[in-house]
């Protein structure tokens, strides 16, 4: 939410300070914040932290990209024609109902513990928000907008690049804004469950060896990653939709 007062951070800061002052550095459950840095430093020294962050980011970016392409293509297709919509929607609804978590073991069994498996699991759930916003945007396009270029004799390619794409772009971006945090969550989820590379795998490993300070440290890093993703996507979406509003 924009315009949240910074003063609101006070309770969180107070909590962390109290935790730091009152916490027992040897606590296996609630190690105070200062120990988190020490907890993560072995990963930095052995050069595992940055590759893990890189792995997670790569899967996230690629997954979101593929989801955007697939989602907007299928969404446009389904939104353009009622019969196609009716034909595909039960199958799509059923696929959508499958929780991402349940796909993980299936994908791991069928595709093995690989980077491709991670991508497949990320793409499927991240696709839905984009598909749905794109579908409703395509559906509510004014027929005039579609007929005018046809009357003007524009080619199919020109119609797509000059009319359809600009008209649907804000919807796609809105979908991406919803899908991005989801894609990051699913990326971490796959990594935690399958232990295939990345930040999630490091988290899972730290938890099973009871390195609680490292768990909290990695959690914080995951949080920063989540914050950055949110910030970038929200910024991009507002910037583009502001420009778009100027043109229509």
């Amino acid at each position: 939410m924009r315009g949240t007062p910074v003063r609101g951070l006070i309770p969180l800061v107070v909590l962390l300070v109290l935790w730091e002052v009152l916490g027992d550095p040897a606590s296996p459950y609630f190690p105070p914040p200062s120990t988190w840095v020490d907890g993560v430093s072995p990963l930095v020294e052995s050069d595992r932290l940055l590759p893990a962050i890189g792995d997670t980011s790569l899967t996230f970016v690629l997954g979101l990209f593929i989801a955007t392409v697939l989602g907007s293509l299928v969404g446009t297709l389904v939104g353009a024609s009622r019969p196609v919509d009716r034909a595909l929607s039960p199958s799509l609804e059923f696929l959508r109902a499958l929780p991402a978590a349940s796909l993980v073991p299936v994908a791991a069994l069928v595709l093995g513990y690989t980077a491709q498996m991670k991508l497949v699991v990320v793409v499927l759930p991240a696709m839905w928000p984009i598909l749905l916003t794109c579908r409703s945007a395509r559906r509510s396009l004014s027929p005039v907008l579609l007929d005018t270029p046809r009357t003007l004799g524009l080619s199919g390619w020109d119609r797509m690049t000059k009319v359809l794409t600009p008209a649907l772009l804000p919807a796609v971006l809105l979908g991406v804004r919803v899908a991005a945090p989801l894609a990051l969550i699913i990326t971490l989820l796959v990594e935690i469950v399958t232990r295939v590379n990345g930040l999630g795998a490091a988290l899972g490993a730290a938890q099973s060896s009871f390195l609680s300070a490292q768990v909290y440290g990695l959690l914080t890093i995951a949080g920063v990653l989540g914050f950055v993703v949110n910030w970038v996507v929200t910024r991009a979406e507002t910037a583009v939709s502001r420009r778009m509003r100027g043109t229509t």
Partner: protein
Amino acid sequence: MAERVNVLGAAVFVFGLGLWELLVRTGLLTFTYLPPPSEVAVGLGELLGNGELGTALGHTLFAALTGWAVAGLVGVAAGSVLGLVRPVWTYSMASLEALRALPIVAFVPVAVLLFGFSVQTEIMVAFYAALWPILLNTINGMRTEGRLVETGRVLKLSRAAVLWKIQLPAATATIVVGLRLGLSTSLVLTLVAEMVGNPAGLGFLLVTKGQALQPGQMFAAVFVIGVTGIILNGLVMGAARLAFRGQLASAGEA
């Protein structure tokens, strides 16, 4: 609105299943552990027959629904305070925003660390997962429509009456959306907690069937999870429609 039976859609669904069966049987799709739908049906029969499915489903539902219900109480109560009392909002919203940026799944290892391999881990994770959408939607719902509140004040309603007769009904549709979102996320996160933490329930069933190389039974479990999600969502929608018919209709949700 009662929808006509979507014959075309059902046909496409069945056709898709048939195509899948055909591709696997003829060897055109060559994944070692991709079962054809018929094998999934057999797997479903086996799981139902030996009672594994019922036990697992019961366990998962118990954990997810308990966490969700507590999150509903806490989320609506805390969300109302945050939405209605301006100073509380000013002095805590940014903290909540910061905490929300932490990806929920990343909390699963923390929960396992704190509560061990127990059903508490699952319930805590389900609670935490459901809390966010419910809390944020309640806050948003309570903050909208200053004009309605002013109307109530002009009509000399008491503070409690404004809350009960105006603000709560106005927020209902948004809260119901939060409850629905919360239910699906708590189900997902319960499954994750079962996969990496507590060895019980549908999540654990999935993992063990995968490790035992029984793809038929594993796909059957996925199918059951999907259907469960649909049914739960339907139940919440149905209950909300029954309880708050007017409010949802006015918000275009019904």
